Structure formats: C-alpha cells, structure tokens
C-alpha cells in the first residue's frame, strides 16, 4: 500500500466545546472538569472582521464551523480572507445531523403559518453543506467543498476522505473534521429513540488543517501531527450478540495501512456498544492492548465532532512521537478508525 503511505500532516487545529477552546480546554479536561450541552459563548471575537460579521448572522452549525476553522487556519498560517478563490484549498466536513435544527425551525414556521410564513433565508440554510459554503466564501476556498454524514462516525470519515484527496493531489490543503449543533428538537428526537447515545449530547466542532507533508514542509509550516492511516466500515446489526466484525475489520485495515503500533486507544463507543468495541479491539490488537482513554466521558457525545475531538484530546495528552488510534462507533452502525503520530 505504498500510495496509502504518503504522509499527510496536521498543521493547524481549532475546537469549540462546552469546556472552551484550545489550549485551555485540554488543561480543564485533564483537571477533571466535565461539561455537556450547548456552548454558552462562541469565541467569534477572534475571527477576522469580515468572518465575524458572516458568523454573527449565520445559523448555528455554520457558527461552530467558522469559530473552529478560523482558529485552525490561523494556526496553520492559511487564514486569508481576500482575493480570488484558491482552487488548491478546500473543506471536508462530517456531521451526524447537519442542519436538523434549521430544518425544524423552517418546518415549524411553515406548518403554523402556511406558505406565506415560509422563510427563504431559513430554507437556504436547510442544506447541510451551508457551513462548508459559508466557510469557503469566508476564507476563499475554491477547491473541493464537501460535507458528509456517517452518523456519529462522520468526523473520522471526513478526516479520512480529506486524507485521500490530499494523497491523490486533488487539493493542496483542506480544512477537515466534524461538528454538530445541539438544540431542543434534536434532544427531543434523541430522547424519543432516534439514536441510542447513552451520554449527554454536546455541541462541538473540531477541525484541523491537513496538507501533504511535502507541501507543509515546502512552505515552512509547523507540523503538529501526521495521519498515518484511516479506515471505515459498518456493523449491520450493532446490537446483536457477538457483533463487532465490521469494527474489527476496520481496525485491522487501519493498522495495516499505518504500519505503526498505537500507544493509546481513544474509545468511540456509546456505553451500549462498549462490548462490541471491546470484542473488536481484542480481535484486532490481541494481547498487545495499549491503554484506552474516553474523551466522551469529558465532553459528552459530540457526534460529528467526536472523532476529531478525541484525536486532538489524545494528541494533547501524549508525548511527541507517540502514536494514537482513534475510534468512532455509532449505534447507526457506522464505524471508523484513524491512526496519527504526534510530531
């Protein structure tokens, strides 16, 4: 798999969570603080003026993305907001629910007031790629503009897709990761049995800037970590006794691609699927089981943000050179895995 081995670098990172943004969020987490639910105040003030104005009038998912992406692009030194769209820059976002909350608002107003109450402004933001579109306009990203969902595994699937696009030279740098907004209609849907989560639902975005390693070195960018491999798969019946073949095959695939052994595993399973994750890890890793951490115990269930947030939490906790294996496991059946090495 020589083509797979082409290294992809993380050169910037940005997170928004109920515990704040980087770097203070990692100190608060390691001090034992816990938080879940909505983010009280988004750090929009540090964004460039034009982006801040755009964020202020945008729907919630876009606000989360602009806040996190602004921090990631600034750290990577790629935060230009003027000039022609750059065909080499793009975005790959993963989300479990996209514009669920905007859909609920549009639908509610229309149901109550009929066609005259249907809002063009709201409807334009009912597409889940609204955040990617706004981000592209704000930061002149004229390359691939991609949004996908794979349930609660969407964040790692997005990082994987972005990695493959960079390996195939289809972009020079990509903002990639995941996000989800939390609000009353979504909580009502979750509580009604839409998706079994088992932890408090939390709002978050966790985005990174990815570049081919040689491109990052060529422009003198500081490399935070390297992505060594990724994989995704599916569990058709995740709650069935003995399930775990899909995740085990996914972990085996990511280990084969990365060719390096993890020193830390970031658990991704909701409590109800802990046994499935355990079976899959036992099968794929055998006796050589590194310690497991669960950032979801700190941040709650952040859905599309969970995998990238777990990756960044683990990278903040390990020594330079350490290798982390991050898992996403969703009750929908979606599973994903990623291996990265801190530089």
């Amino acid at each position, binding site marked *: 798999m020589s083509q797979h081995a082409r290294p992809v670098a993380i050169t910037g990172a940005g997170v928004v969570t109920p515990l704040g943004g980087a770097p203070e969020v990692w100190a608060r987490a390691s001090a034992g603080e816990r938080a879940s639910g909505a983010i009280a105040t988004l750090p929009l003030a540090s964004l460039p003026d034009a982006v801040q104005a755009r964020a202020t009038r945008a729907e919630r998912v876009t606000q989360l993305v602009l806040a996190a992406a602004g921090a990631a692009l600034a750290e990577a030194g790629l935060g230009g907001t003027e000039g022609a769209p750059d065909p080499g820059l793009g975005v790959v976002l993963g989300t479990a629910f996209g514009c669920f909350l905007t859909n609920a608002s549009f*639908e509610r107003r229309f149901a109550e007031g009929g066609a005259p109450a249907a809002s063009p402004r709201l409807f334009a*933001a009912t597409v889940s790629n609204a955040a990617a579109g706004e981000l592209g306009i704000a930061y002149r990203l004229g390359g691939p503009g991609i949004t996908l969902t794979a349930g609660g595994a969407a964040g790692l699937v997005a990082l994987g897709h972005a990695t493959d696009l960079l390996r195939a030279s289809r972009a020079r740098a990509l903002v990639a990761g995941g996000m989800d907004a939390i609000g009353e209609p979504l909580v009502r849907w979750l509580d009604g049995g839409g998706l079994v989560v088992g932890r408090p639902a939390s709002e978050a975005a966790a985005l990174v800037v990815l570049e081919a390693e040689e491109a990052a070195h060529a422009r003198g960018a500081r490399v935070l970590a390297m992505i060594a491999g990724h994989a995704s798969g599916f569990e058709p019946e995740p709650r069935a006794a003995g399930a775990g073949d899909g995740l085990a095959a996914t972990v085996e695939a990511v280990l084969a691609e990365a060719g390096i052994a993890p020193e830390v595993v970031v658990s991704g399973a909701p409590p109800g699927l802990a046994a499935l994750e355990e079976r899959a890890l036992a099968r794929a890793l055998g006796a050589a089981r590194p310690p497991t951490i669960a950032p979801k115990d700190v941040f709650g269930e952040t859905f599309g943000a969970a995998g990238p947030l777990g990756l960044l939490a683990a990278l903040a906790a390990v020594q330079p050179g350490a290798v982390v294996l991050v898992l996403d496991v969703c009750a929908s059946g979606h599973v994903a895995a990623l291996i990265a090495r801190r530089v």
Partner: protein
Amino acid sequence: MREIARASLQNPPTRAAVITGYGVVSPLGSGVRAFFEALVAGRSGVGPIAGFDAAGLSPSIAAEVREASISDPDRAGAFALRAAREAVADAGLEGAPPARLGVVLGTTLGGMRLFEAWNAGRRTDVDLERVPYFAPSVRVARALGCHGPVATTQLACASSTHAIALAADLVRQGRADAVLAGGTDLLCRFVVAGFNCLRATADVARPFDRDRRGLVLGEGAAVVVVEDAGNAARRGARLRGRLLGVGAAADAVHMTAPDREGGGAARAIVAALGDAGLPPDAIDFVSAHGTGTPYNDAMEAVALGRVFGDRRLPVNSIKGSIGHTLGAAGAFEAVMCLTAMAEGIVPPTAGLVNVDPVCARLDLVFGGPRRATLARSVSTSSGFAGTNAALVLGRA
C-alpha cells in the same frame, strides 16, 4: 477563456473503477430500461402533485414517482433500496456480495417526510431511526449486510455526483471491493414550500430555453455499482461503463446564487478531467445540470465554454423529463450517460423549444434524440452554497 486540464499523473491510482450495474426508481418508471426509453421518447413525468396534500403550495406540480407498490412511510429509503437491489442484480452480485461492499448515497432530504409529520406533532408512531440524512444509506447497508464503508454525501444538488466520486476513491484506494453509489430524494411539503418561497420553481422546466422561468422538483433514486476493475474482471462481470475521473470545487461566491463566471463548475470539470488524465477534446458529450432556472443555465453555458472553448459537443439536461431530483439528480444523469454511450443515442432536453442566445455556444440536443458515437462523457452538478461536482464516464 479555455482552461487546460491539469493532469495529476504524479500519483496515478493503482486501481481503476468500473461500473458493473445500475438501477433507478424514477418519475418515468422503475428500472433503467423503462427510464431510458422514456427519456429518449422525450416523455415527461411532471404533473399535479397527487402523493401528498399540496394545499397552499404554488406551484403545486412536480415529477412524482407513481409506483403504487411503494407505500413505505420512509419513501427515500424505499426508493434507495429498490434501486440498489436492481443495481446489485444487474451487476450479478445477488447472493454473492464482495466481502468489502460499501454504500455511499447522496441526499438533501432523507427522511424529511417522516420528520415533517413528527416535528409538527401530527404523528407519534414515526420510526425515528429513519429520519436523519444518513438513514437511507443505513437502510440499504443493513438490508444487504454490508461491512464496508458507508457514508452519505451532503453537497445539496451535487450530492449524488460526489457520492459516485467518493465511491471511486474508496475503490481506487483499495478501501472497498465494490460500492453501491448514487442518491435518493423525495417530494414533501417542506421542499416544495422551500423552493417556492425562493421563487425558484415554475410550472414547466425549460432548461436552456429563452423562456425558462425556474425548476420543477422531482423525486426518486438512482444507484450504480462502482467496482474495482480487477475484482470485476476476476468474476467475469459485464461492464456498464468506466468511472474515469472525478472532481469537486466550490464557487466561494454566494450561498444561493451560482457564480455568474461559472468558476466553481469549471474548476470541478477541470479537476475531473485532470483526475482522468484526459484533455477536454477527449469528451464527446456533456450531461448538464440544466435546472431551467435563469441563473443556473446561463452560468453553465459560461462554465462549459471555459472548459471546452468553442468546440461544439452535444449537451443535454434531463430535468425537463424527471424534474430536479436534488440529491439524486447526478446519479440519474450518470445512469443516463452510461446508457447513452452504450446505445449511441443522446436523449433530448424535454421542455427546450427556443435556445436562449446566452446558451447558443452549446450544441443542445432537443426536439428529438440524437444518434452519436460516444466514448466519454462528462456529467456535472451544482448546488446551494456554491458546491459543484463532476464525473468523467467512459463507455464499457
């Protein structure tokens, strides 16, 4: 004006992606045969909305799937599953799916009709698992017992074009042996009211016509089997076509209006040609996005001019026949391209009577089908938030 495709040959894919099967559930009927014959005949599936209460909606016409056998409340999932089963059978994979079978579907609405009923409190018996955007992919993946990658692309009206592109990446990178790729979308009050309030809809879709006034919505699902060429050869599969190149690019200009310079659409096509390692001259036919809105069609004429220059090659849009099926549109158009190349016949652009002078540079196929020898085609899609995606498809 002409932009030369950048060939990205420094990292040629180690594997090739081929298409070994396809299936559709369309407003012109179920099954690729019925769908394509109706397109060639210039038939339209557009009519007054009958499948749900359209009171208060204006316009209230659309291209509905009129299959009495599909009464499932999860309409998008039911469409996708039927199209996927046709594609699996067409590919000869029934009962013998590859170990690493994936599913990548595009959608803009997913389980929206269920969501409407639940959110308005009208029904409490809704199967909530079928509501989210990822539900149709999950339903197909569960029904077929998939263990490979499963994802749902969300690029508005370019969703299923990029679903096929992502499937190509998964196969070429060796991450799956085969992927069921395409899109599904449904009609409901939510989407009709939404497009109506944007004043984007009309009573008839007239792509590229001087009198075009807007789009007509449609629904359905189209699914192709994207397979590793080596895997297909080993099992002696018949090819429906080749997936030669994929590309995506954002306008980065405006959230709802297309870039009048056609920047993103041109970049997506150029990227797909670069991925295929082909010059624009290698393309024989273009399936346009061609929604019938004033801005989109004018933008596309500019974008195609930027890529193909003054060369006149056949261009059509099938949205006058099946409406704009949103997240399924690109997959329907890919199936049309594959069939057109195999049979050497381009279906006409239904609804087009008088070509708009701003689109005159395009050799539009209308008034009747056109016989032509077609080796390679481009299918292009654009959507809300300035997203664009394109495919380069080859004859088997």
